[in-house]
């Protein structure tokens, strides 16, 4: 048989283990990108099937039905209705879960109406016995007009059977399993007559949703007066849903047997503790505390190792390559720049590890439930907890995660305050400054002072987010209906493979995404620091050696003085000097000033920038970034640059300032206006300046 390429779309409700099935099919052969124009994550993987067939597997965003209520869900409909899309599926795999079959089948019956070959996967069958569930598969296959595969992605059961079944997609029925149009015969008959070439369900989706297609425009339908009032449409949608559930209930009455006596009570016991009015909050706090302590403690050794490796790599390059501009670029620009980012891989890995465990286990939904009432006092929703926690990884996916907040005002406030939470890009800055200015001591025997400071900074971020939400809630005059529906999924032991794939993907995205910017900025900085406009720069050596007070110095000391003098008179030095008056009240010198400016593109650039500046400005390359920062002194006063007062001032500045172009872009996209991101930028950055100023002036 010749080689063949097919498209397979995976679709299903949230929390059915769809992504696990995807991971089992494709392993690490995945590409994560975005759908053009919108910030919905697009995951496509590759899978070899029997009979020489290759499959592109598309993991569509989780959705409860084809009635889209968010951008994520619109993606699903648009792909499934657009035959011209190059990912248009040859076969759809609907993933359902054995315990929630009833609800999962609603989506299935809608998909069947699209008349595309559809396979039903029933996942998590390893729980069937535990829950006392038995299924009559031949009966279900007949009623649902499909083929069913029983899968346990956890126990790796059924994946091969699924692969084989996919290859036979041409033989699978494309007939709908019920006639939903009987909810309003007259209406649908006229519709059918007017557009005889279109599938009826597709027409219905176009009428009820805000989507357009090349071959089918909403306007055409409006002209034919097929639109109804919103209230009428909603009544019809309700009727449609009831109709579908009637069919499903009747089918499952025969096809599914549940022996409820066998069902264990584990879930409700755990729920009782985790949502308890005292234990619930206490456990939540302990979980957060543990995460932040371990991020700092566990990543210490690998971080030091990476840092010192790059320092020796840099000096090795310097010694072994012929001296000149090119060697300098590599040894002083590129290597320290890359080292400045790779150093934080351990911390970022741990952070993503914990976040994905919280989400996978089902604990996150309990936190939403626990926090809703409290969060509402601040104009937020319980669902804002998820963005606020995942904001500790990165504000961008966090802002996208606000999409499932139904109330626009709550959602807007969540978007606006999320950048206050301590994202992973702040971590490098915090880590290095805490390491410099906070003593590495233990209090009460177990609490590390540095870890504690880090935790305080996280709390500060959350606190500011909540406080500004409270103010926004008072200021913003928006009237929105409050809807709130959150699914409480069953508790699951997180699957190692899923967690690992998430961690690897996210860390890769961090390293390459931030790495590109950091590399480019390092090179530019190195150039600006190694060249200067004036005579002073070119004649640095003569000027320094001719000075009377320098006559008695050793060769090495003179070299250092020359390098420092050159740096001061380079382009970057002049730029830094220009802004120095604005930042010296905060306790910063011009070098920190340059680092702050360059980190407006992305915060994590801060460390890389300082690394580059210090490498150019000194003659030794053997030292680690940390040691270089620790020994940096103010030439006028002889005081350390990174002392307690300036350190705290820097920490506060980074805690509050909005230094991330991508965050501004995503806020613009999600709010559809420049008003909100610009407001965010101005408010957060001026607040940061004022707080840093107060802190330094009080502490110095």
């Amino acid at each position, binding site marked *: 048989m010749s080689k063949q390429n097919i498209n397979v779309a995976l679709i299903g409700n949230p929390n059915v283990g769809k992504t696990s099935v995807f991971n089992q099919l494709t392993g690490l052969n995945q590409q994560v990108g975005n759908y053009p124009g919108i910030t919905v994550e697009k995951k496509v993987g590759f899978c070899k099937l029997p009979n020489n067939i290759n499959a592109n597997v598309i993991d569509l965003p989780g959705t409860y039905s084809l*009635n889209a209520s968010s951008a994520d869900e619109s993606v699903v409909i648009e792909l499934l209705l657009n035959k011209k899309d190059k990912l248009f599926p040859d076969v759809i795999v609907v993933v359902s879960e054995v315990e929630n079959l*009833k*609800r999962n089948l609603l989506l299935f019956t809608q998909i069947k109406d699209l008349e595309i070959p559809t396979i039903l996967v029933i996942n998590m069958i390893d729980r069937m016995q535990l829950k006392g569930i038995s299924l009559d598969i031949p009966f279900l296959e007949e009623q649902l007009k499909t083929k069913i595969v029983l899968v346990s992605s956890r126990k790796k059961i059924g994946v091969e059977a699924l692969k084989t079944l996919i290859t036979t997609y041409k033989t699978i029925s494309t007939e709908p399993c019920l006639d939903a149009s009987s909810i309003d015969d007259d209406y649908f008959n006229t519709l059918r007559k007017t557009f005889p070439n279109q599938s009826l369900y597709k027409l219905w989706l176009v009428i009820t949703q805000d989507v357009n297609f090349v071959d089918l425009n909403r306007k055409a339908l409006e002209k034919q007066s097929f639109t109804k009032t919103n209230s009428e449409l909603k009544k019809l949608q*309700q009727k449609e849903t*009831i109709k579908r559930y009637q069919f499903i209930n009747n089918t499952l009455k025969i096809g599914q047997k549940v022996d409820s006596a066998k069902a264990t009570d584990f879930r409700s016991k755990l729920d009782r503790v985790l949502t308890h009015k005292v234990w619930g909050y206490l456990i939540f706090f302990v979980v957060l505390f543990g995460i932040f302590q371990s991020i700092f403690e566990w990543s210490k050794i690998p971080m030091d190792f990476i840092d010192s490796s790059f320092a020796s790599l840099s000096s090795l390059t310097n010694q072994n390559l012929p001296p000149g501009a090119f060697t300098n670029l590599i040894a002083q620009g590129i290597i320290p720049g890359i080292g400045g980012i790779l150093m934080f891989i351990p911390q970022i890995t741990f952070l993503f590890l914990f976040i994905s465990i919280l989400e996978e286990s089902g604990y996150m939904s309990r936190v939403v439930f626990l926090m809703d009432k409290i969060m509402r006092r601040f104009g937020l929703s319980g669902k804002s907890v998820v963005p606020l926690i995942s904001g500790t990884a990165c504000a961008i996916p966090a802002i996208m995660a606000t999409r499932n907040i139904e109330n626009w005002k709550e959602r807007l406030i969540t978007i606006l305050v999320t950048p206050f939470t301590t994202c992973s890009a702040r971590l490098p800055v915090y880590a290095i400054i805490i390491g410099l200015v906070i003593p590495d001591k233990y209090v009460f025997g177990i609490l590390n002072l540095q870890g504690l400071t880090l935790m305080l900074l996280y709390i500060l971020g959350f606190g500011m987010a909540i406080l500004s939400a409270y103010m926004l809630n008072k200021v913003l005059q928006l009237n929105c209906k409050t809807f709130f529906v*959150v699914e409480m999924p069953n508790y699951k032991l997180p699957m190692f493979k899923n967690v690992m794939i998430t961690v690897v993907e996210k860390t890769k995205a961090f390293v390459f995404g931030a790495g590109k910017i950091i590399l480019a900025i390092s090179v530019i900085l190195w150039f600006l620091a190694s060249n200067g406009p004036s005579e002073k720069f070119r004649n640095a050596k003569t000027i320094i050696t001719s000075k009377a007070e320098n006559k008695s110095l050793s060769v090495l000391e003179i070299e250092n003085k020359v390098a420092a003098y050159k740096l001061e008179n380079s382009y970057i030095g002049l730029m830094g000097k220009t802004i120095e008056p604005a930042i010296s009240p905060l306790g910063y010198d011009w070098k920190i000033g340059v680092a702050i400016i360059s980190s407006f593109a992305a915060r994590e650039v801060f460390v890389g920038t300082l690394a580059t500046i210090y490498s150019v400005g000194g003659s030794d390359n053997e030292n680690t970034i940390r040691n270089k920062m620790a020994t940096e002194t103010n030439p006028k006063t002889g005081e350390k640059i990174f002392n307690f007062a300036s350190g705290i001032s820097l920490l506060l500045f980074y805690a509050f300032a909005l230094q991330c172009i991508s965050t501004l872009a995503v806020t613009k996209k999600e709010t559809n206006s420049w008003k909100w991101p610009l407001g965010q930028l101005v408010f957060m950055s001026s607040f940061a300046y004022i707080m840093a100023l107060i802190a330094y002036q009080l502490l110095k």
Partner: protein
Amino acid sequence: MKTTIASLKKGEKAIIKDFDADVIPLKLLEMGCLPGNTVQLLQIAPFGDPLYLDINGSHLAIRIETAREIEVDSITK
């Protein structure tokens, strides 16, 4: 006074009777909140809101103001 989900006691079961489709989000209907289906109040969050329900086998939480709109008939005496 009519009985709604909001007036159920913890652990109490009921049958959904009626509600105004305009005030209930479609998403809730799709998750099984339809007339004739059973509902059980499983947990009440601290401070009395939101409510954690088992509707037609689906486990979900809604706010009390939505719960007040859904009329039910209690089946546990």
